[in-house]
């Protein structure tokens, strides 16, 4: 069953078109992540769904009800904000019950719901504190609780973790994932952190300039990015790109040429200028490299040890090449190493359209 349906949504701020004829269909219980660089319109889309912005054109349906002109509180959504947006002068209890009081719910039911939410989020001991007396993680939990008590069908999250430090972010990420597992609500989650997107999402929508570039599962997006932008956006360290051309089933770049055996083209194999993208972690170095379809020998320019891994920078076919190695790898600047990769794991993009070949 469709839980949230966005139909031909357009939103303009004056002359600036932020969202352009956008369509998404989110089935019930899905965890959808909106991912994109800053300013691409993620928050705007979320605010449109929540009813906090008036759409310029198009419709929004939630649970098969056209809510385009409905007030935010009448849409059956709950929203969690980046800055937590807790009411500073109210206790945690007050924060949780504010929305329910506004809806004139009976006192006993309010108490019941608050108690339930507090239990789920393990914030019972905090109920009588004010937000100022809470840590970042606790605040975030209260913010989630505020959506929880309202018993809504759809949760909207706008970068809920980006104000937290790395460690806490990792922990709360896991908690949100657990929450989704147990509640099974529809969740729409905005972030610009790809790790969050990859780990949390059932499906990811990658946005750029108000347009969805690719809407698919994390694995699919990681392995088969639909265009060059997506390929470059997803993955850290960044994917390596080589400019060249597809010629008779092989790829030619900077004097080198290698076969593309095993690469599954989208349509018919066509020649022409193209980009080849290969992820740093898909490049194998050392002895194991020899057994792969494409091999080469390169000189290491720079080594960045990161503890668990090591990132080596080399030059291949005149272009910089990142190679991810094991943290214990003993390479140094100036070493010559053997590398290899499997074209099946690479991605090819048309030079002009930048679409996947």
């Amino acid at each position: 069953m469709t839980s949230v349906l966005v139909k031909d949504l357009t939103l303009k701020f004056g002359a600036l078109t932020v969202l352009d004829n956008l369509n998404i269909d989110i089935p019930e219980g899905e965890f959808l992540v909106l991912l994109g660089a800053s300013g691409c319109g993620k928050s705007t889309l979320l605010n449109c769904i929540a009813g906090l912005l008036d759409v310029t054109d198009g419709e929004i349906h939630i649970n098969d009800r056209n809510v385009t002109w409905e007030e935010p509180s009448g849409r059956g959504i709950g929203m969690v904000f980046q800055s937590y947006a807790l009411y500073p002068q109210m206790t945690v209890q007050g924060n949780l019950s504010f929305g329910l009081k506004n809806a004139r719910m009976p006192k006993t039911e309010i108490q019941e719901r608050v108690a339930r939410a507090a239990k789920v989020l393990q914030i019972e001991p905090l109920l009588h504190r004010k937000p100022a007396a809470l840590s970042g993680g606790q605040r975030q939990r209260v913010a989630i609780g505020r959506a929880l008590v309202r018993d809504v069908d759809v949760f909207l999250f706008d970068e809920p973790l980006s104000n937290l430090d790395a460690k806490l972010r990792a922990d709360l990420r896991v908690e949100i994932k657990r929450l989704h597992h147990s509640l099974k609500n529809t969740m729409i989650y905005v972030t610009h952190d790809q790790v969050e997107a990859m780990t949390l999402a059932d499906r990811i929508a990658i946005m750029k300039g108000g347009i969805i570039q690719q809407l698919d599962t994390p694995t699919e997006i990681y392995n088969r990015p639909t265009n060059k932008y997506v390929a470059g956006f997803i993955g850290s360290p960044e994917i390596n790109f080589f400019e060249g051309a597809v010629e008779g089933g092989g790829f030619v770049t900077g004097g080198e040429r290698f076969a593309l055996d095993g690469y599954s083209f989208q349509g018919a194999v066509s020649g022409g200028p193209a980009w080849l993208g290969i992820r740093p972690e898909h490049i194998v170095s050392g002895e194991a490299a020899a057994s792969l379809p494409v091999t080469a020998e390169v000189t290491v320019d720079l080594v960045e040890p990161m503890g668990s891994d090591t990132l080596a920078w080399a030059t291949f076919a005149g272009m910089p090449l990142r190679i991810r190695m094991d943290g214990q790898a003993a390479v140094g600047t100036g070493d010559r190493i053997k590398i290899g990769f499997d074209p099946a794991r690479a991605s090819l993009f048309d030079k002009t359209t930048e679409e996947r070949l």
Partner: protein
Amino acid sequence: MWNSEARNVADAVTPRGPKPRPRFSRTNIMLYGTLIVVAAYYALPLYVMIVTSLKGMPEIRIGNIFAPPVEVTFQPWVKAWAEACTGINCDGLSRGFWNSVQILVPSVILSIAIASVNGYALANWRFRGSEVFFTILIVGAFIPYQVMLYPLVIILREMGLYGSIWGLVLVHTIFGMPILTLLFRNYFTSVPEELFKAARVDGAGFWGIYFRIMLPMSLPIFVVAIILQVTGIWNDFLFGVIYTKPADYPMTVQLNNIVNSVQGVKEYNVNMAATLLTGLVPLIIYFASGKLFVRGIAAGAVKG
């Protein structure tokens, strides 16, 4: 200069710990010297007023205005407060004081209430044209009052408020609106927008958000607004003269009258006592809320 001094010392001992700095360096003497001289200049008038108000007239005539009183007398204060005459009304400043209080309280409440709601609407509920009105309002703050004095007489007359305290309250509300609205708008704009969005998702409306969310959060700005308005309205002279009748004259106008309605010789001590009495309310507010006052002025002005 510093370096050479430091070198000289360095020759003697190995530098360790904090750099030795002479307590009375030339820079410090200049710095504190200037500050103290200027502070004396600023403090002097208050001192002179206080000293003069405690002297008797003969002492004033022969003495030096800076000299402390030989014989302290509170008679001038008593006279200024309760006996000084304007015409045949000899009840001193006390009447003006109560008039000022009667003008002050409703003016402050009304102007702040209206301006805060305005600022809130402008910050969070923008509608078509709201910015235009706001711009007019801000530009209006710089229009000389003189341009609007007479039209306001007509407006008040048409409303039947001319000459009454409520007329003056309205005038204060109108002329206080630009700066206060700006103050509140800036403040409410600085309240995270997400808070406002969260409240809307929680189903609160215009007034719900104002009273339940915004008001409790804006105590500091209210304090600032109150300070600005209390001092501003208390110190007003022009509107008090033009829009009220003598029976309702605020204290500043009364002060000017008492000081200028001389009978025989000028009683400088009474005048100074009266002057101090008039300045007392804003001074107390200012000394009591020193830091807030400063913060408020800075917040209201630097952002504007």
